[in-house]
């Protein structure tokens, strides 16, 4: 087995194992930490795919910002000896989770055939994964997508401010 393959299998296995632990952990904070393991293994896999930019973004945005916020909320709203038992044994949560899982697995199965087509046919550009080519593609070919995403984020921001303001007024009254 080539060293690259070994690298892939180690981190793919770690990501899968950690992914299973995310949904089987008894405490929310452990789930969050296993999710951190998933993110870091994924970023290692991105490095294997010669996309260091994406790997770093994976760590910065998912592990460094989103998951930190999740842990922040967990530490703010729960206690260290709290268990998630009542949530985990809730039938409607479980049913919803199972439904989402089956649907997303189905979606992935549908997409796998498409992805293999793309991977086989498209030639690999010489400057794949470099910062310059990334920026060039983002700001030339995909500018509209980029702008739409930023407008979406702005809308979310305005909504958040609106909700926060409304709560404040309710408290003062």
């Amino acid at each position, binding site marked *: 087995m080539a060293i690259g393959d070994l690298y892939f299998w180690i981190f793919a296995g770690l990501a899968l194992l950690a992914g299973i632990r995310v949904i089987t952990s008894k405490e929310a*904070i452990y789930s969050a930490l296993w999710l951190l393991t998933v993110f870091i293994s994924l970023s290692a896999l991105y490095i294997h795919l010669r996309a260091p930019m994406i790997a*770093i973004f994976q760590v910065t945005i998912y592990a460094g910002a989103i998951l*930190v916020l999740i*842990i*922040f909320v967990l*530490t703010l709203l729960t206690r*260290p000896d709290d268990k998630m038992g009542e949530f985990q044994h809730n039938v409607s949560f479980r049913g919803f989770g199972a439904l989402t899982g089956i649907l997303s697995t189905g979606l992935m199965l549908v997409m796998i055939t498409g992805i293999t087509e793309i991977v086989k046919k498209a030639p690999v550009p010489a400057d794949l994964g*470099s*910062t310059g080519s990334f920026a060039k593609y983002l700001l030339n070919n995909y500018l509209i997508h980029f702008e739409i995403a930023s407008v979406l984020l702005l809308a979310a921001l305005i909504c958040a401010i609106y909700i926060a303001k409304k709560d404040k007024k309710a408290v003062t009254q």
Partner: protein
Amino acid sequence: MIDLIIALIKVVGIWSFTLGVAAVMTWVERRGAALIQDRPGPNRAGLFGILQPVCDGIKLFTKENIVPEKADKVLFNLGPIMFAIPAFSAFAVIPFGDRIIIGGKEILLQISNIDIGFLYIVALGSLAVYGVIIGGWGSNNKYSILGGLRSTAQLISYEVPWGLALLGVVLVYGTFNLREIALAQQGTFLGILPNWGVFHQPLGFILFMVAAYAEANRVPFDLPEAESEIVSGYHTEYGSMKLGVYLFGEYVNITTLSALTVTFYFGSWHLPYINMASFLGDGTIIYGIASFLIFCLKVSFFLWLFVWVRWTVPRFRYDQVMKLGWKSLIPLALFNLFITTLFIQIKYYIGG
């Protein structure tokens, strides 16, 4: 094979260098405090108390390792480790000197010369918060949890202006590569000033310094461990070497931040107005050592600045910290970014 050995030497060298600097810093901190407060400070162990870090180390290693009964054992032990890993890894992309050429083989005085060095630094900076919050949570103590919460909020808030300020420098030099940024600071700017980042980005430098003090949890932003309010914050329950790792990690963080300040804003290994490479010969061993020493000299000034500020400025209140971060630093950082891009565009159109 020879590349591997060179890389190993560099890794071990920088590892022991940061550890050594951190150890000396614990002594500098206490002597500096004493100097500012007009008292002798630790002066018994060795000359001027220079052996004090060794004594502290022996003390911390031989103390009893206490784990609180109600603590979450796994998280409690994981906390210091997750604090130490990002702190020690960040130095990997910082150039600590120019280069040495031995027998036609170029050895960069930098562990890893990667193209996304800047993004690597930002990513590791954002991971630093885990050690603090997990340690605080795992201790199962209200002061620890409060310290962890404060630290998370503070680090998230100051990560933004910190990154935005550095982005200004990246725009000026047009690269994410830290070695290229360092190389670009040779020569003069506007004819009279050294071509350093601080003269290109004066506002960005101030924003970066303020945010860096907050990132390192140093006074005036040491709210996560404010001893007059929440005992000792996230490391209240820690003792022996686990506490040592936290305290040591803080000094390693300070060293890294000082090195970053020098790399981004103070010309890394360059002396103002003197082109060392032509003076001593590019690639010679003496030039490599000289560039490393100049880098160390600049870093030591910023290390001293950390101590100086700590014993000069009182601590902020929590809401003041949040207000400063979100209402002053972030708008100013965005303004700085806007002005920088504007100048770059104007220069582009004039210069063609």
